[in-house]
Every structure is written in structure tokens, then in C-alpha cells.
């Protein structure tokens, strides 16, 4: 087994998905800094400082409090997202994901390429991450939490593991004291000691732990069970007033959706986005006829849809729900035909619908209107019908009507249009400038223009 550990050191500061280049710190109940992100650290802010000191060092400092519930939500989101990289994922608190990758390395074309893909994807979602691969789950976890490690396997990996300091090994403070007391500073020194001696002096737990770290005995953590339905929500620190500001936090929910769909080989056809404030709630639905799993495409559709939406009140919670999906069909397209199509027709139509609204697009064979316009309600004999129909007939002034040359007619059409018995005599008429129109005379001898022969 091969393991990949992803540790998110600044996750409590990155929960709501805003810019990680701005200095930000987390405070405890005594107004002291407990965690500072890299931007804050480069200004000289360290954990343990008082708020006043930190604010003096970096004036545009943004503050936040510990939020265990939200942290849990985001970890679940990350686990869903990681579903596209591995089938076996474990959550290892604090803030660490453990992925079993041996079975997936071939698919991702090797460890290095997998690492690159993860870096790009996490960067895009605005997370800082330290990662490490290891031959044992415990080893990968320790390396990731100690700042990450580039080594993949073999001697490099064992050397990196051996370089870990005793304080980086997550041992109890008594064990740490005992080890430093006998002059052991690094893991390599500890691993070099005889097992029996070690067990006798420091207890059998330590040797068992050492076996797990060094991979002598595999004891993988329990796998995480993904939920059956996809319905994720994200609480925001700041209230949002404009729809475009939703896009950034939304990106993370969509990344989780992509992982969820890819793991199940599903395509989403309908998503629902719920936006909630203190007292208000809005929901929007976006549809893709053919179905798709790509986060970027759904983001594009949602962006277009959100442009049309105005928020009735500020919101502080967004939730994304997968309403409909279908299973992915094996792609059996011909490999040799030239692929000129950049965007499939159904994607184009979904895009147009998202921006213009569902009712703005209509297929001509789906018209449900008056029988006159429905091909299935036509008599058998051929009739000359205009190609343009005016939505409502336009009254023809007498002066204009007298200039017309009637070319054919009358054709009497009777029917209950608009549930009202009507009788109309239709004529094809030519205008002096050569245009040809479709006009009728109603029961009261009024003339109307109803269409054009375009």
C-alpha cells in the first residue's frame, strides 16, 4: 500500500474561501494569536502574541475565531473532492486527509503527475496544503504535518522520515521527555535502538507505534464513508451582498461535487443552489440536458445564472444540492473522426438558458399554441402558409389596405381560437414595394395583418 497525506495547516483561516494572500490570524478566548497564515507570518506575527502586537505589525489584519463545526464541514467537502483521486480516503484529525494511492498511480501516470494535479486543484480552491507520500499511513501523516516531503519512496523517503525530530512525532509529553532525556533527538536514532530494550524501558506501545511509522506493520485507519446524497452547505464568515462574490466559495462546493460524481461515475443534470441569509432564502436551479461532471463547466453555468439574480438580502450560507443525475455511459466515440466540436450542442443550450432564462429558448417542434401553427393540426391539402407569424395580428389601416394587391383568397378559417368562435377570411396580398403578406378580414369587416412570406 502507498499512502498520500494531505495536511491543511492553515485550514481554520481558510474556511470561507477568501484570499489567502491577506494576513489573517485566529484568536483564542484571551485575544491571543493561536494561528497565523503565511502572509501574517511574513509580517512577523507569531502564535502567542497579543492581538495589539499583531495589529501593530500588520495593520490590515483580518481576524477569525475557532469554528469546529465549520472545520468539520470543510473537511467533509475536501474528502468528497478527493474522491476523484482515490477510492479509499480517511479523515485523520486534525486537518489531514489520507489517501490510498497505490491502485491509482497508473491512472494518474505516476506519483509526480498525481502530486502536480493535486497542487493545481488545491491552489485553485485557495487551500494551503503540505503533502507527503509514504509507505506507511502513519509515516505519510507525520511527514505531511512536519511540513511536507517531496520524496516518494526508497532511500529518500526513509532518510526524510529519519530526519523527523522527536517533537514532530506526536508522542505524549512523557514519552518525549524520556526520549530527550536519554539524548535521542531524531527518529533515525530511535529506530536504531534494539526493540526489546526499547519496549522494556519505554513500554510496548512505543515499539508498536514505531512499527506502524516505519511500515513494519500496516494498520490503515478506518476509511471514510461518503454520503449517499450530495447536499453540502458552507457557512460564510462575511455576509455577501452581491452574487458575483458567491463564485469563490462556490468553487469549493463544485470541486467537492466533481469528486463525488467522478467516484460514482455519474453525470449531474440538475443542481440547486440555495442562498440563505438571516431571514431570507433564495434558491436557483441550473440544468444541463446531457449531464456533466466538470466543476468548471457547472461553475460557468452557475455564473451565467447568477448574473441574472439579485440578492434580496445579504446571505451568509450557501448550499449546493445534486437534484438529478444519471450514470455515465461508456464513451464510444470514434477515435479517428476529427473533433471539430468545441462545445456540445446541449452545453451551448444550457449556457444560453443559464444566462437568458429557461423561457428564452424554445424549440420549434415544442410549440404549444393555436392549432393554426401546429403542423399536426393541418388539413391534408396543401395550404400556402407564411413563414413569419406576428404574435398578435396588427390592424391594417384602410389607406394602406387599398394599395394592396390581393393575390389569392379568400380562404375561410373557422375555429375556436382563444376559446372564442371566430371566422376569418385570409388573403395573400402583395405590397406595392414587392413584399408579400398574409392578411385577413374578420366578421366585422376589419382588416388585419397576420404574417409575412419571408
Amino acid at each position: 500500500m502507498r499512502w498520500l497525506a494531505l495536511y491543511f495547516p492553515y485550514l481554520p483561516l481558510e474556511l470561507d474561501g477568501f484570499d489567502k494572500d491577506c494576513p489573517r490570524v485566529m484568536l483564542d478566548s484571551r485575544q491571543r494569536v493561536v494561528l497565523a497564515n503565511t502572509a501574517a507570518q511574513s509580517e512577523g506575527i507569531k502564535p502567542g502574541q497579543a492581538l495589539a502586537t499583531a495589529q501593530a505589525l500588520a495593520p490590515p489584519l483580518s481576524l477569525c475565531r475557532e469554528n469546529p463545526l465549520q472545520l468539520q464541514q470543510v473537511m467533509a467537502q475536501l474528502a468528497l473532492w478527493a474522491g476523484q483521486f482515490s477510492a479509499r480516503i480517511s479523515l485523520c484529525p486534525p486537518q489531514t486527509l489520507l489517501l490510498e494511492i497505490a491502485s491509482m498511480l497508473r491512472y494518474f501516470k505516476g506519483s509526480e503527475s498525481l502530486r502536480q494535479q493535486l497542487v493545481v486543484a488545491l491552489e485553485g480552491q485557495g487551500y494551503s496544503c503540505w503533502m507527503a507520500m509514504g509507505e506507511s499511513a502513519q509515516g505519510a501523516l507525520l511527514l505531511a504535518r512536519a511540513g511536507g516531503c517531496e520524496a516518494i519512496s526508497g532511500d529518500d523517503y526513509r532518510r526524510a522520515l529519519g530526519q523527523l525530530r522527536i517533537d514532530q512525532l506526536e508522542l505524549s509529553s512523557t514519552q518525549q521527555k524520556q526520549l530527550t532525556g536519554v539524548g535521542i533527538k531524531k527518529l533515525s536514532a530511535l529506530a536504531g535502538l534494539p526493540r526489546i530494550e526499547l519496549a522494556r524501558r519505554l513500554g510496548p506501545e512505543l515499539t508498536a507505534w514505531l512499527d506502524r511509522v516505519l511500515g513494519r506493520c500496516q494498520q490503515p485507519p478506518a476509511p471514510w464513508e461518503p454520503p449517499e446524497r450530495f447536499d453540502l452547505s458552507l457557512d460564510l464568515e462575511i455576509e455577501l451582498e452581491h452574487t458575483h462574490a458567491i463564485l469563490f466559495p462556490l468553487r469549493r462546493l463544485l470541486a467537492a461535487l466533481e469528486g463525488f460524481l467522478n467516484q460514482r461515475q455519474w453525470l449531474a443534470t440538475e443542481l440547486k443552489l440555495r442562498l440563505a441569509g438571516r431571514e431570507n432564502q433564495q434558491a436557483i436551479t441550473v440544468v444541463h440536458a446531457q449531464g456533466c461532471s466538470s466543476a468548471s463547466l457547472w461553475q460557468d453555468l452557475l455564473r451565467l445564472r447568477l448574473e441574472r439574480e439579485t440578492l434580496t438580502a445579504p446571505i451568509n450560507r450557501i448550499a449546493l444540492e445534486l437534484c438529478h443525475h444519471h450514470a455515465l455511459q461508456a464513451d464510444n466515440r470514434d477515435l479517428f473522426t476529427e473533433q471539430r466540436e468545441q462545445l456540445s450542442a446541449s452545453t451551448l443550450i444550457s449556457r444560453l438558458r443559464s444566462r437568458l432564462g429557461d423561457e428564452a429558448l424554445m424549440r420549434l417542434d415544442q410549440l404549444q399554441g393555436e392549432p393554426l401553427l401546429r403542423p399536426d393540426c393541418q388539413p391534408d391539402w396543401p395550404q400556402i402558409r407564411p413563414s413569419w407569424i406576428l404574435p398578435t395580428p396588427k390592424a391594417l389601416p384602410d389607406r394602406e389596405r387599398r394599395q394592396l394587391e390581393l393575390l389569392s383568397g379568400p380562404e375561410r378559417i373557422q375555429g375556436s381560437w382563444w376559446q372564442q368562435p371566430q371566422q376569418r377570411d385570409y388573403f395573400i396580398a402583395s405590397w406595392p414595394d414587392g413584399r408579400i403578406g398574409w392578411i385577413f378580414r374578420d366578421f366585422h369587416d376589419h382588416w388585419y395583418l397576420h404574417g409575412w412570406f419571408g
Partner: protein
Amino acid sequence: MALAELLNNGQLWRGSESRQTLDIETDSSGYNRLDHWLPGGGWARGQLIELLYPAPGVGELRLLWPLLKRAKKDSTSPVMWIDPPADPNPVALQQAGISLAQQWVVHSGKDRAKALWSMEQALSSGSCALVLGWLDGRLPTVAQRRLQVAAQNGNTSGWLMRPDREHLQPSAAAYRVRLQAEGGCTRNMLEQRLISHRKVQLELQKRRGGWPMDPQPITLCGLF
């Protein structure tokens, strides 16, 4: 790019001759006479074609009938009608042999920016058989150029349907066609079914690989 290559694909042409053969993909217009006037024997594919006509009812749709009928062959690719001036009549289209399931009507709600965006999206997506857009009023050259580029990128032909009064405005489209009805018809003509072969005046103000052409009469297909 060699000079010969430029000459062959019509980007460069000699003023003394109008080439009948070009090394570009063309779509027959469906009218022999018109194909004869178009270098390469048809509309070059993936180009913007601007059609200027005074008002609906001149024969502007019948000029497109053959193109719409041909689009039926691969019925997955849609034909987009963006902001048409009235409702296209399904009965007439079906009588003409045009597949209704392929025709999509898009209403931008009289929003110029949305109409342009929709047309650009449809053209550049490369998934449409044909894109027809009715854009009234002045159209900035930049917008036209964007549409022309989108048509080229998506290799999709786009028809820009514009009022005739705009014929003095500059155009970035590859073709510019003016359509005028030829006087009035008489009842007698219809009875002799001449109406179904009615003539209109077609002027090519701009064409790929040739000089502009003065108005010439052309017979369009029938009313149904």
C-alpha cells in the same frame, strides 16, 4: 504563407479575374445562379454573412430555405434563430421540408448585449448547423468583427440579418448581400403559379474572392 496559397484560398485575389475555383470549403447556396456568382461555388464555410433587406416579407427566409433543408442531414446540430422579428411558422417550415426539432428560437428580451453574446456563443461553440441573428440598429464594427472571428473559430456560418438602411455602414462580415423585392405582383401571376418562382434583386456588396456585384435578378424558391 506563399503567395500562391493566399491566392488559392481566396484571401488574396487578382482584380482582373474572379476565380471560380477556390481551395476553401464552401456550402452551395442552393441556387445555381447565386453559386455561379460566389467564388468557390457557394458560401465559404465559417464566415459571417450580412443580409440587408428592407422589411420582412421580401424573401429573406426563402433565400435560406436550401441551407436550412440541408441542415437536416445531421439532426443533432441545432439552427439558432436569435431575436427573429416575428415567430417563425412551424407549418410553413415543415411544408418546406425543414426539420423543426433542429430549430431553436432564442429571445434575448430586446437586450442587444445578450443577443450579441448569444450569437457569439452559438457561432464559436462549433456545434450549430447555422446561426441566424436579427440585430437592428447600428452595430459597432467591433461587435461585427467579434462575430466574424467567432464564426471562423467555430467553423460555423452565421447570418446577420440587418435592415437595408444600414447599407452604408462599414461591415466586417465576409459577405454582404442586399435583397430587394422586384416591384409588386399581380393576381394573374399567382394563378399562373409564377409567385412560386418570384424574382428578387440580389446585390453582392462584398464577397470572398471577387469584386462587388451589382443587383441581379434571381428566382427564389416557392412560397411553400
